[in-house]
Protein backbone atom coordinates (compact mmCIF):
# COMPACT_ATOMS: atom_id res chain seq x y z
CA UNK A 1 0.00 0.00 0.00
CA UNK A 2 2.84 2.37 0.90
CA UNK A 3 4.49 1.82 -2.47
CA UNK A 4 1.45 2.83 -4.46
CA UNK A 5 0.80 5.81 -2.19
CA UNK A 6 4.32 7.12 -2.60
CA UNK A 7 4.26 6.36 -6.34
CA UNK A 8 1.02 8.26 -6.84
CA UNK A 9 2.26 11.14 -4.69
CA UNK A 10 5.51 11.28 -6.63
CA UNK A 11 3.59 11.30 -9.90
CA UNK A 12 1.32 14.13 -8.73
CA UNK A 13 4.33 16.13 -7.49
CA UNK A 14 6.12 15.64 -10.80
CA UNK A 15 3.02 16.75 -12.70
CA UNK A 16 2.79 19.83 -10.47
CA UNK A 17 6.45 20.74 -11.09
CA UNK A 18 6.09 20.35 -14.82
CA UNK A 19 2.91 22.37 -14.79
CA UNK A 20 4.52 25.15 -12.81
CA UNK A 21 7.59 25.19 -15.06
CA UNK A 22 5.41 25.39 -18.19
CA UNK A 23 3.33 28.23 -16.72
CA UNK A 24 6.39 30.19 -15.62
CA UNK A 25 7.97 29.87 -19.02
CA UNK A 26 4.80 30.96 -20.82
CA UNK A 27 4.48 33.91 -18.46
CA UNK A 28 8.11 34.85 -19.10
CA UNK A 29 7.43 34.97 -22.84
CA UNK A 30 4.37 37.14 -22.28
CA UNK A 31 6.34 39.39 -19.93
CA UNK A 32 9.08 39.90 -22.53
CA UNK A 33 6.53 40.76 -25.24
CA UNK A 34 4.81 43.21 -22.93
CA UNK A 35 8.10 44.93 -22.05
CA UNK A 36 8.86 45.36 -25.75
CA UNK A 37 5.40 46.78 -26.44
CA UNK A 38 5.64 49.12 -23.45
CA UNK A 39 9.04 50.38 -24.57
CA UNK A 40 7.66 51.14 -28.01
CA UNK A 41 4.72 53.00 -26.51
CA UNK A 42 6.66 54.85 -23.79
CA UNK A 43 4.74 53.13 -21.00
CA UNK A 44 6.81 52.37 -17.86
CA UNK A 45 8.07 48.77 -18.14
CA UNK A 46 7.02 47.79 -14.62
CA UNK A 47 3.36 47.95 -15.72
CA UNK A 48 4.02 44.62 -17.43
CA UNK A 49 3.80 43.00 -13.99
CA UNK A 50 0.14 44.04 -13.80
CA UNK A 51 -0.66 41.71 -16.67
CA UNK A 52 1.96 39.03 -16.10
CA UNK A 53 1.07 38.19 -12.50
CA UNK A 54 -2.66 37.49 -13.08
CA UNK A 55 -1.77 35.60 -16.22
CA UNK A 56 0.67 33.45 -14.24
CA UNK A 57 -1.99 32.72 -11.65
CA UNK A 58 -4.74 31.69 -14.08
CA UNK A 59 -2.45 29.87 -16.46
CA UNK A 60 -0.94 27.84 -13.61
CA UNK A 61 -4.42 26.94 -12.36
CA UNK A 62 -5.62 25.70 -15.76
CA UNK A 63 -2.36 23.89 -16.51
CA UNK A 64 -2.36 22.03 -13.19
CA UNK A 65 -5.98 21.05 -13.73
CA UNK A 66 -5.08 19.68 -17.16
CA UNK A 67 -2.03 17.77 -15.92
CA UNK A 68 -3.98 15.16 -13.99
CA UNK A 69 -3.84 11.39 -13.81
CA UNK A 70 -6.11 11.22 -16.86
CA UNK A 71 -3.47 13.11 -18.83
CA UNK A 72 -0.90 10.45 -17.88
CA UNK A 73 -3.34 7.70 -18.90
CA UNK A 74 -3.73 9.31 -22.33
CA UNK A 75 0.04 9.27 -22.80
CA UNK A 76 0.45 5.69 -21.53
CA UNK A 77 -2.55 3.73 -22.91
CA UNK A 78 -1.62 0.62 -20.91
CA UNK A 79 -2.51 2.53 -17.79
CA UNK A 80 -5.93 3.58 -19.04
CA UNK A 81 -8.47 3.47 -16.18
CA UNK A 82 -6.01 1.37 -14.20
CA UNK A 83 -3.94 4.24 -12.84
CA UNK A 84 -6.89 6.26 -11.58
CA UNK A 85 -8.48 3.19 -10.02
CA UNK A 86 -5.22 2.41 -8.22
CA UNK A 87 -4.96 6.05 -7.12
CA UNK A 88 -8.56 6.13 -5.85
CA UNK A 89 -8.10 2.92 -3.89
CA UNK A 90 -4.66 3.69 -2.47
CA UNK A 91 -6.05 3.53 1.07
CA UNK A 92 -7.92 0.24 0.64
CA UNK A 93 -6.51 -2.60 2.70
CA UNK A 94 -6.95 -6.36 2.70
CA UNK A 95 -8.22 -6.62 -0.82
CA UNK A 96 -6.68 -9.31 -2.98
CA UNK A 97 -7.62 -7.75 -6.30
CA UNK A 98 -6.57 -4.25 -5.29
CA UNK A 99 -3.16 -5.63 -4.28
CA UNK A 100 -2.79 -7.28 -7.69
CA UNK A 101 -3.92 -4.06 -9.39
CA UNK A 102 -1.28 -2.09 -7.49
CA UNK A 103 1.46 -4.49 -8.54
CA UNK A 104 0.45 -4.21 -12.19
CA UNK A 105 0.15 -0.43 -12.02
CA UNK A 106 3.55 0.01 -10.40
CA UNK A 107 5.15 -2.07 -13.16
CA UNK A 108 3.44 -0.07 -15.89
CA UNK A 109 4.24 3.27 -14.25
CA UNK A 110 7.90 2.67 -15.15
CA UNK A 111 6.85 3.38 -18.74
CA UNK A 112 5.96 6.97 -17.88
CA UNK A 113 8.57 9.27 -19.42
CA UNK A 114 9.33 12.91 -18.61
CA UNK A 115 9.08 13.78 -22.30
CA UNK A 116 5.33 13.15 -22.09
CA UNK A 117 4.86 16.29 -20.02
CA UNK A 118 7.18 18.72 -21.78
CA UNK A 119 6.58 19.65 -25.38
CA UNK A 120 10.17 20.00 -26.54
CA UNK A 121 9.23 21.57 -29.86
CA UNK A 122 7.18 24.27 -28.19
CA UNK A 123 9.89 24.88 -25.60
CA UNK A 124 12.56 25.29 -28.29
CA UNK A 125 10.40 27.75 -30.19
CA UNK A 126 9.76 29.71 -27.01
CA UNK A 127 13.49 29.92 -26.21
CA UNK A 128 14.26 31.20 -29.72
CA UNK A 129 11.40 33.66 -29.50
CA UNK A 130 12.62 34.90 -26.11
CA UNK A 131 16.12 35.41 -27.50
CA UNK A 132 14.74 37.45 -30.42
CA UNK A 133 12.49 39.52 -28.14
CA UNK A 134 15.39 40.19 -25.75
CA UNK A 135 17.53 41.41 -28.63
CA UNK A 136 14.68 43.67 -29.81
CA UNK A 137 14.22 45.09 -26.30
CA UNK A 138 17.92 45.95 -26.08
CA UNK A 139 17.84 47.56 -29.54
CA UNK A 140 14.69 49.54 -28.85
CA UNK A 141 15.97 50.88 -25.55
CA UNK A 142 19.43 51.73 -26.97
CA UNK A 143 18.08 53.68 -29.96
CA UNK A 144 15.11 55.19 -28.07
CA UNK A 145 12.66 53.85 -30.61
CA UNK A 146 9.14 55.02 -29.89
CA UNK A 147 6.13 54.48 -32.10
CA UNK A 148 3.58 56.36 -30.08
CA UNK A 149 3.71 58.17 -26.76
CA UNK A 150 0.76 56.68 -24.95
CA UNK A 151 1.07 58.66 -21.68
CA UNK A 152 1.26 61.96 -23.58
CA UNK A 153 -1.70 61.00 -25.77
CA UNK A 154 -3.71 60.12 -22.72
CA UNK A 155 -2.71 63.43 -21.06
CA UNK A 156 -3.77 65.38 -24.15
CA UNK A 157 -7.05 63.56 -24.25
CA UNK A 158 -7.60 64.58 -20.67
CA UNK A 159 -7.12 68.30 -21.49
CA UNK A 160 -9.36 68.28 -24.56
CA UNK A 161 -12.41 69.50 -22.72
CA UNK A 162 -10.62 72.23 -20.78
CA UNK A 163 -10.57 75.98 -21.85
CA UNK A 164 -7.22 77.84 -22.14
CA UNK A 165 -8.29 81.25 -20.87
CA UNK A 166 -10.30 82.28 -17.87
CA UNK A 167 -13.34 83.94 -19.31
CA UNK A 168 -15.95 85.71 -17.28
CA UNK A 169 -19.18 84.58 -18.83
CA UNK A 170 -21.05 87.63 -17.58
CA UNK A 171 -18.81 89.98 -19.47
CA UNK A 172 -19.35 88.14 -22.68
CA UNK A 173 -23.11 88.11 -22.45
CA UNK A 174 -24.68 90.02 -25.29
CA UNK A 175 -28.21 91.20 -25.62
CA UNK A 176 -29.52 91.76 -29.02
CA UNK A 177 -30.61 95.36 -29.52
CA UNK A 178 -33.32 96.58 -31.81
CA UNK A 179 -30.94 98.29 -34.13
CA UNK A 180 -28.56 95.32 -34.24
CA UNK A 181 -28.19 93.20 -37.29
CA UNK A 182 -25.82 90.36 -38.18
CA UNK A 183 -22.98 92.84 -38.36
CA UNK A 184 -23.59 94.10 -34.85
CA UNK A 185 -24.30 97.65 -33.66
CA UNK A 186 -23.60 100.40 -36.13
CA UNK A 187 -21.96 102.68 -33.61
CA UNK A 188 -19.39 99.98 -32.74
CA UNK A 189 -18.87 99.21 -36.39
CA UNK A 190 -17.53 102.77 -36.77
CA UNK A 191 -14.60 101.73 -34.65
CA UNK A 192 -13.42 99.69 -37.54
CA UNK A 193 -12.90 102.85 -39.56
CA UNK A 194 -10.20 104.06 -37.20
CA UNK A 195 -6.65 103.11 -37.79
CA UNK A 196 -5.16 100.93 -35.10
CA UNK A 197 -1.45 100.96 -35.00
CA UNK A 198 0.15 97.73 -33.83
CA UNK A 199 3.85 97.27 -33.72
CA UNK A 200 5.43 93.85 -33.54
CA UNK A 201 9.03 93.83 -32.52
CA UNK A 202 10.54 90.76 -34.11
CA UNK A 203 13.82 91.17 -32.22
CA UNK A 204 12.11 90.71 -28.96
CA UNK A 205 10.24 87.69 -30.16
CA UNK A 206 11.27 84.38 -28.74
CA UNK A 207 10.68 82.65 -32.10
CA UNK A 208 13.75 81.99 -34.19
CA UNK A 209 12.78 80.15 -37.33
CA UNK A 210 16.35 79.36 -38.28
CA UNK A 211 16.90 77.43 -35.10
CA UNK A 212 15.67 73.87 -35.13
CA UNK A 213 15.49 71.91 -31.95
CA UNK A 214 13.64 68.98 -30.55
CA UNK A 215 10.21 69.82 -29.36
CA UNK A 216 10.02 70.19 -25.65
CA UNK A 217 7.15 70.15 -23.30
CA UNK A 218 6.03 73.53 -22.07
CA UNK A 219 3.45 73.97 -19.40
CA UNK A 220 1.84 77.37 -18.94
CA UNK A 221 0.64 78.05 -15.44
CA UNK A 222 -0.48 81.66 -16.03
CA UNK A 223 -2.49 83.10 -18.83
CA UNK A 224 -0.43 86.12 -19.87
CA UNK A 225 -0.71 87.54 -23.36
CA UNK A 226 2.52 88.15 -25.29
CA UNK A 227 4.30 91.31 -24.20
CA UNK A 228 5.23 92.50 -27.68
CA UNK A 229 1.70 93.20 -28.67
CA UNK A 230 0.71 96.71 -27.59
CA UNK A 231 -2.14 98.97 -28.41
CA UNK A 232 -0.88 102.46 -29.41
CA UNK A 233 -4.16 104.13 -29.88
CA UNK A 234 -7.18 103.81 -27.83
CA UNK A 235 -9.62 105.65 -29.93
CA UNK A 236 -12.24 103.26 -28.84
CA UNK A 237 -12.42 105.12 -25.55
CA UNK A 238 -13.49 108.24 -27.37
CA UNK A 239 -16.44 106.57 -28.89
CA UNK A 240 -19.73 106.47 -27.27
CA UNK A 241 -20.91 103.08 -26.67
CA UNK A 242 -23.10 101.48 -24.11
CA UNK A 243 -21.84 101.02 -20.57
CA UNK A 244 -22.01 97.30 -20.57
CA UNK A 245 -19.46 97.05 -23.35
CA UNK A 246 -17.07 99.50 -21.75
CA UNK A 247 -16.11 96.98 -19.13
CA UNK A 248 -15.23 94.38 -21.75
CA UNK A 249 -13.11 96.72 -23.77
CA UNK A 250 -11.42 98.23 -20.74
CA UNK A 251 -10.58 94.81 -19.45
CA UNK A 252 -9.19 93.82 -22.82
CA UNK A 253 -6.89 96.79 -23.10
CA UNK A 254 -5.78 96.46 -19.54
CA UNK A 255 -4.77 92.92 -20.16
CA UNK A 256 -2.87 93.52 -23.31
CA UNK A 257 -1.06 96.48 -21.87
CA UNK A 258 0.17 94.53 -18.88
CA UNK A 259 3.91 94.00 -18.89
CA UNK A 260 5.62 90.92 -17.65
Amino acid at each position, binding site marked *: MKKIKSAVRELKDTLAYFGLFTSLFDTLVLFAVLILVFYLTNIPWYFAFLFAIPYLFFHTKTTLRKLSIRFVEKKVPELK*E*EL*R*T*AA*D*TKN*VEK*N*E*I*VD*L*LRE*DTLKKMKKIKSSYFIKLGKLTRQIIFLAVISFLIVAVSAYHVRFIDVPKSLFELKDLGKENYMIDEELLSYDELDDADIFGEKNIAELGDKELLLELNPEMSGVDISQVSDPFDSYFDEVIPPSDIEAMTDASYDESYSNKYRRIIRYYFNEISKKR
Partner: protein
Amino acid sequence: MKFEEAKKTFDYIFNELGKVVIGQEEPLKQVTVALLANSHALLEGYPGLAKTLAITTFAKLMDLKFSRVQFTPDLMPSDITGTYLIEETTSGKRSFKFQPGPIFANVVLGDEINRATPKTQSALLEAMQEKQVTVGTATFQLDEPFFVLATQNPIEQEGTYPLPEAQSDRFLLKIKLDYPSEEEELEIINKYAEAHKAVKLKSVLNKDSIQYLQHLAKQVPIANDLKKYIVDIITKTRKKKDLIEYGASPRASIGLTLASKARALIEGRKYVSKTDINKMVYPVLRHRIILSFEAERQGLDEDAVIKTLLK
Protein backbone atom coordinates in the same frame (compact mmCIF):
# COMPACT_ATOMS: atom_id res chain seq x y z
CA MET B 1 -8.66 -20.25 -6.35
CA LYS B 2 -6.58 -17.26 -7.35
CA PHE B 3 -7.57 -14.35 -9.56
CA GLU B 4 -5.75 -15.76 -12.62
CA GLU B 5 -7.44 -19.11 -12.13
CA ALA B 6 -10.83 -17.40 -12.00
CA LYS B 7 -10.36 -16.07 -15.54
CA LYS B 8 -9.40 -19.53 -16.76
CA THR B 9 -12.45 -21.02 -15.04
CA PHE B 10 -14.79 -18.62 -16.75
CA ASP B 11 -13.16 -19.25 -20.10
CA TYR B 12 -13.65 -22.96 -19.55
CA ILE B 13 -17.31 -22.47 -18.57
CA PHE B 14 -18.10 -20.46 -21.68
CA ASN B 15 -16.20 -22.88 -23.81
CA GLU B 16 -18.20 -25.80 -22.43
CA LEU B 17 -21.44 -23.87 -22.75
CA GLY B 18 -20.55 -23.14 -26.35
CA LYS B 19 -20.51 -26.88 -27.03
CA VAL B 20 -24.19 -27.16 -26.12
CA VAL B 21 -25.67 -23.70 -26.72
CA ILE B 22 -24.77 -22.19 -30.08
CA GLY B 23 -24.44 -18.41 -30.01
CA GLN B 24 -25.93 -16.49 -27.05
CA GLU B 25 -22.48 -15.74 -25.64
CA GLU B 26 -23.49 -12.35 -24.31
CA PRO B 27 -26.69 -13.56 -22.54
CA LEU B 28 -24.71 -16.39 -20.94
CA LYS B 29 -22.09 -13.93 -19.79
CA GLN B 30 -24.82 -11.83 -18.24
CA VAL B 31 -26.25 -14.89 -16.47
CA THR B 32 -22.78 -15.46 -14.99
CA VAL B 33 -22.69 -11.81 -13.93
CA ALA B 34 -25.97 -12.26 -12.05
CA LEU B 35 -24.59 -15.35 -10.33
CA LEU B 36 -21.37 -13.58 -9.30
CA ALA B 37 -23.33 -10.60 -8.02
CA ASN B 38 -25.27 -13.02 -5.78
CA SER B 39 -28.52 -12.01 -7.38
CA HIS B 40 -31.09 -13.24 -9.87
CA ALA B 41 -31.83 -12.84 -13.55
CA LEU B 42 -34.91 -12.68 -15.74
CA LEU B 43 -34.53 -14.03 -19.24
CA GLU B 44 -36.85 -12.81 -21.94
CA GLY B 45 -36.95 -14.27 -25.41
CA TYR B 46 -39.14 -15.88 -28.02
CA PRO B 47 -39.80 -19.58 -27.75
CA GLY B 48 -37.10 -21.87 -29.06
CA LEU B 49 -34.09 -19.71 -28.27
CA ALA B 50 -32.55 -22.24 -25.88
CA LYS B 51 -33.33 -20.36 -22.72
CA THR B 52 -34.04 -23.49 -20.70
CA LEU B 53 -31.22 -25.42 -22.38
CA ALA B 54 -28.72 -22.69 -21.54
CA ILE B 55 -29.70 -22.57 -17.89
CA THR B 56 -29.79 -26.35 -17.42
CA THR B 57 -26.36 -26.60 -19.07
CA PHE B 58 -25.10 -23.79 -16.89
CA ALA B 59 -26.36 -25.59 -13.79
CA LYS B 60 -24.63 -28.82 -14.87
CA LEU B 61 -21.28 -27.05 -14.97
CA MET B 62 -21.74 -26.18 -11.34
CA ASP B 63 -21.88 -28.80 -8.69
CA LEU B 64 -25.09 -27.28 -7.32
CA LYS B 65 -28.57 -28.52 -6.63
CA PHE B 66 -30.78 -27.55 -9.53
CA SER B 67 -34.56 -27.46 -9.75
CA ARG B 68 -37.00 -26.41 -12.40
CA VAL B 69 -40.48 -24.99 -11.97
CA GLN B 70 -42.82 -24.67 -14.90
CA PHE B 71 -45.20 -21.87 -14.06
CA THR B 72 -48.77 -22.34 -15.06
CA PRO B 73 -51.90 -20.42 -14.12
CA ASP B 74 -53.00 -23.13 -11.73
CA LEU B 75 -49.70 -23.33 -9.90
CA MET B 76 -50.07 -22.70 -6.17
CA PRO B 77 -47.56 -21.03 -3.84
CA SER B 78 -47.17 -24.27 -1.92
CA ASP B 79 -46.07 -25.94 -5.14
CA ILE B 80 -43.04 -23.68 -4.97
CA THR B 81 -42.31 -23.38 -1.29
CA GLY B 82 -43.38 -26.81 -0.15
CA THR B 83 -46.07 -27.90 2.22
CA TYR B 84 -46.77 -30.05 5.23
CA LEU B 85 -47.72 -33.60 4.54
CA ILE B 86 -49.08 -36.15 6.90
CA GLU B 87 -46.56 -38.85 7.56
CA GLU B 88 -47.30 -42.09 9.27
CA THR B 89 -44.56 -43.88 11.10
CA THR B 90 -44.25 -47.67 11.32
CA SER B 91 -45.76 -47.55 14.77
CA GLY B 92 -48.84 -45.94 13.29
CA LYS B 93 -48.15 -42.51 14.67
CA ARG B 94 -49.07 -39.71 12.33
CA SER B 95 -47.38 -36.35 12.18
CA PHE B 96 -46.96 -33.43 9.88
CA LYS B 97 -43.71 -33.33 8.03
CA PHE B 98 -42.56 -30.48 5.92
CA GLN B 99 -41.93 -31.46 2.32
CA PRO B 100 -39.65 -28.80 0.78
CA GLY B 101 -40.63 -27.45 -2.57
CA PRO B 102 -38.44 -26.96 -5.63
CA ILE B 103 -37.33 -23.62 -4.29
CA PHE B 104 -35.03 -25.43 -1.90
CA ALA B 105 -32.24 -25.66 -4.41
CA ASN B 106 -29.18 -23.61 -5.25
CA VAL B 107 -30.21 -22.87 -8.85
CA VAL B 108 -33.92 -22.51 -9.50
CA LEU B 109 -35.22 -22.18 -13.01
CA GLY B 110 -38.69 -20.64 -13.16
CA ASP B 111 -40.04 -21.13 -16.66
CA GLU B 112 -42.59 -18.61 -17.89
CA ILE B 113 -43.01 -16.85 -14.60
CA ASN B 114 -45.58 -14.52 -16.11
CA ARG B 115 -48.02 -17.39 -16.49
CA ALA B 116 -48.43 -17.88 -12.77
CA THR B 117 -50.84 -15.85 -10.65
CA PRO B 118 -49.47 -12.89 -8.67
CA LYS B 119 -49.87 -14.88 -5.46
CA THR B 120 -47.65 -17.66 -6.74
CA GLN B 121 -45.17 -15.18 -8.19
CA SER B 122 -44.91 -13.45 -4.84
CA ALA B 123 -43.99 -16.75 -3.12
CA LEU B 124 -40.95 -17.02 -5.36
CA LEU B 125 -40.09 -13.35 -5.14
CA GLU B 126 -40.29 -13.37 -1.37
CA ALA B 127 -37.78 -16.20 -1.28
CA MET B 128 -35.51 -14.31 -3.67
CA GLN B 129 -35.52 -11.24 -1.45
CA GLU B 130 -35.39 -12.80 1.99
CA LYS B 131 -33.54 -16.03 1.10
CA GLN B 132 -35.92 -17.81 3.39
CA VAL B 133 -39.33 -19.38 3.16
CA THR B 134 -42.12 -19.15 5.68
CA VAL B 135 -44.67 -21.91 5.67
CA GLY B 136 -47.25 -21.72 8.39
CA THR B 137 -45.38 -20.68 11.52
CA ALA B 138 -42.02 -22.13 10.52
CA THR B 139 -39.29 -20.30 8.66
CA PHE B 140 -36.79 -22.22 6.59
CA GLN B 141 -33.52 -20.73 5.44
CA LEU B 142 -32.52 -21.36 1.88
CA ASP B 143 -29.10 -22.79 1.12
CA GLU B 144 -26.40 -20.45 -0.21
CA PRO B 145 -25.75 -19.70 -2.99
CA PHE B 146 -29.32 -19.19 -4.06
CA PHE B 147 -29.84 -18.20 -7.64
CA VAL B 148 -33.16 -17.81 -9.48
CA LEU B 149 -33.32 -17.67 -13.23
CA ALA B 150 -36.78 -16.88 -14.48
CA THR B 151 -37.85 -16.89 -18.09
CA GLN B 152 -40.54 -14.88 -19.80
CA ASN B 153 -42.17 -15.03 -23.18
CA PRO B 154 -42.65 -11.59 -24.75
CA ILE B 155 -45.44 -12.82 -27.04
CA GLU B 156 -48.67 -14.60 -26.18
CA GLN B 157 -49.38 -12.15 -23.39
CA GLU B 158 -53.08 -13.00 -23.25
CA GLY B 159 -53.97 -14.65 -20.00
CA THR B 160 -50.62 -13.85 -18.42
CA TYR B 161 -49.77 -11.90 -15.31
CA PRO B 162 -46.85 -9.61 -16.15
CA LEU B 163 -44.53 -9.01 -13.24
CA PRO B 164 -45.19 -5.60 -11.70
CA GLU B 165 -42.20 -3.26 -11.84
CA ALA B 166 -41.86 -3.23 -8.07
CA GLN B 167 -41.33 -6.99 -8.12
CA SER B 168 -39.28 -7.27 -11.27
CA ASP B 169 -36.85 -4.95 -9.45
CA ARG B 170 -35.79 -8.03 -7.44
CA PHE B 171 -34.04 -9.34 -10.53
CA LEU B 172 -30.64 -7.77 -11.02
CA LEU B 173 -30.73 -8.26 -14.77
CA LYS B 174 -33.34 -8.63 -17.45
CA ILE B 175 -31.52 -10.48 -20.18
CA LYS B 176 -32.87 -10.40 -23.71
CA LEU B 177 -32.25 -13.32 -26.01
CA ASP B 178 -32.29 -12.67 -29.69
CA TYR B 179 -32.46 -14.89 -32.73
CA PRO B 180 -29.16 -16.48 -33.79
CA SER B 181 -27.34 -15.38 -36.91
CA GLU B 182 -27.48 -17.43 -40.11
CA GLU B 183 -24.12 -19.07 -39.47
CA GLU B 184 -25.14 -19.93 -35.93
CA GLU B 185 -28.44 -21.39 -37.13
CA LEU B 186 -26.58 -23.57 -39.62
CA GLU B 187 -24.40 -24.79 -36.82
CA ILE B 188 -27.52 -25.54 -34.73
CA ILE B 189 -28.95 -27.65 -37.53
CA ASN B 190 -25.67 -29.52 -37.90
CA LYS B 191 -25.56 -30.20 -34.20
CA TYR B 192 -29.14 -31.03 -33.36
CA ALA B 193 -30.66 -32.31 -36.55
CA GLU B 194 -27.95 -34.87 -37.10
CA ALA B 195 -26.84 -37.83 -35.07
CA HIS B 196 -24.10 -36.79 -32.68
CA LYS B 197 -22.76 -38.03 -29.43
CA ALA B 198 -24.11 -36.24 -26.39
CA VAL B 199 -21.70 -33.77 -24.90
CA LYS B 200 -20.40 -34.75 -21.51
CA LEU B 201 -19.92 -31.80 -19.26
CA LYS B 202 -17.64 -31.68 -16.28
CA SER B 203 -18.64 -29.51 -13.37
CA VAL B 204 -15.99 -26.96 -12.49
CA LEU B 205 -17.60 -24.93 -9.77
CA ASN B 206 -18.91 -25.99 -6.41
CA LYS B 207 -20.55 -24.07 -3.59
CA ASP B 208 -17.32 -22.89 -2.00
CA SER B 209 -15.73 -21.78 -5.25
CA ILE B 210 -18.87 -19.91 -6.28
CA GLN B 211 -19.02 -18.16 -2.94
CA TYR B 212 -15.35 -17.30 -3.24
CA LEU B 213 -15.90 -15.90 -6.73
CA GLN B 214 -18.84 -13.85 -5.45
CA HIS B 215 -16.59 -12.47 -2.72
CA LEU B 216 -13.87 -11.77 -5.30
CA ALA B 217 -16.32 -9.94 -7.56
CA LYS B 218 -17.18 -7.54 -4.75
CA GLN B 219 -13.50 -6.82 -4.25
CA VAL B 220 -12.95 -5.57 -7.80
CA PRO B 221 -12.12 -1.86 -7.37
CA ILE B 222 -13.92 0.92 -9.20
CA ALA B 223 -12.61 4.46 -9.74
CA ASN B 224 -14.45 7.39 -8.17
CA ASP B 225 -15.30 9.03 -11.48
CA LEU B 226 -16.92 5.80 -12.67
CA LYS B 227 -19.04 5.67 -9.52
CA LYS B 228 -20.16 9.22 -10.34
CA TYR B 229 -20.86 8.09 -13.89
CA ILE B 230 -23.14 5.34 -12.60
CA VAL B 231 -25.02 7.70 -10.30
CA ASP B 232 -25.29 10.19 -13.14
CA ILE B 233 -26.93 7.60 -15.41
CA ILE B 234 -29.42 6.51 -12.75
CA THR B 235 -30.25 10.09 -11.84
CA LYS B 236 -30.88 10.88 -15.49
CA THR B 237 -33.57 8.20 -15.59
CA ARG B 238 -35.50 10.23 -13.02
CA LYS B 239 -34.98 13.55 -14.78
CA LYS B 240 -35.66 12.57 -18.38
CA LYS B 241 -39.39 13.12 -18.05
CA ASP B 242 -40.02 13.39 -21.78
CA LEU B 243 -39.19 9.72 -22.38
CA ILE B 244 -39.23 8.10 -18.92
CA GLU B 245 -42.25 8.34 -16.68
CA TYR B 246 -40.71 6.58 -13.69
CA GLY B 247 -36.97 6.29 -13.26
CA ALA B 248 -34.81 3.75 -11.47
CA SER B 249 -34.30 3.57 -7.72
CA PRO B 250 -30.95 3.60 -5.82
CA ARG B 251 -31.15 -0.19 -5.94
CA ALA B 252 -30.29 0.20 -9.64
CA SER B 253 -27.11 2.12 -8.73
CA ILE B 254 -26.02 -0.70 -6.43
CA GLY B 255 -27.02 -3.29 -9.02
CA LEU B 256 -25.13 -1.59 -11.84
CA THR B 257 -21.99 -1.27 -9.70
CA LEU B 258 -22.08 -4.93 -8.68
CA ALA B 259 -22.84 -6.07 -12.22
CA SER B 260 -19.94 -3.99 -13.60
CA LYS B 261 -17.57 -5.47 -11.02
CA ALA B 262 -18.68 -9.02 -11.87
CA ARG B 263 -18.26 -8.26 -15.54
CA ALA B 264 -14.72 -7.00 -14.97
CA LEU B 265 -13.90 -10.21 -13.10
CA ILE B 266 -15.24 -12.35 -15.93
CA GLU B 267 -13.16 -10.36 -18.44
CA GLY B 268 -10.08 -10.96 -16.28
CA ARG B 269 -9.61 -7.30 -15.41
CA LYS B 270 -8.57 -6.11 -11.99
CA TYR B 271 -10.59 -2.88 -12.24
CA VAL B 272 -13.95 -1.76 -13.56
CA SER B 273 -13.87 -0.15 -16.97
CA LYS B 274 -16.38 2.25 -18.50
CA THR B 275 -17.14 -0.39 -21.13
CA ASP B 276 -18.30 -2.74 -18.36
CA ILE B 277 -20.78 -0.13 -17.19
CA ASN B 278 -21.98 0.67 -20.71
CA LYS B 279 -22.54 -3.04 -21.41
CA MET B 280 -24.32 -3.84 -18.15
CA VAL B 281 -26.53 -0.75 -18.04
CA TYR B 282 -29.01 -2.25 -20.51
CA PRO B 283 -29.88 -5.46 -18.62
CA VAL B 284 -29.83 -3.56 -15.31
CA LEU B 285 -32.18 -0.77 -16.34
CA ARG B 286 -34.54 -2.41 -18.85
CA HIS B 287 -37.02 -3.58 -16.25
CA ARG B 288 -36.55 -0.67 -13.84
CA ILE B 289 -37.81 2.18 -16.01
CA ILE B 290 -41.31 2.87 -17.23
CA LEU B 291 -41.47 4.62 -20.55
CA SER B 292 -43.70 7.62 -21.10
CA PHE B 293 -46.41 7.82 -23.71
CA GLU B 294 -44.14 10.05 -25.82
CA ALA B 295 -41.49 7.30 -25.98
CA GLU B 296 -44.11 4.77 -27.01
CA ARG B 297 -45.49 7.17 -29.57
CA GLN B 298 -42.03 7.54 -31.05
CA GLY B 299 -41.72 3.76 -31.17
CA LEU B 300 -38.79 3.67 -28.76
CA ASP B 301 -38.13 0.65 -26.61
CA GLU B 302 -36.24 0.60 -23.30
CA ASP B 303 -32.86 -0.04 -24.92
CA ALA B 304 -33.22 2.94 -27.25
CA VAL B 305 -34.12 5.21 -24.34
CA ILE B 306 -31.24 3.90 -22.22
CA LYS B 307 -28.88 4.63 -25.10
CA THR B 308 -29.83 8.31 -24.93
CA LEU B 309 -28.69 8.41 -21.29
CA LEU B 310 -25.16 7.29 -22.03
CA LYS B 311 -22.42 9.79 -22.78
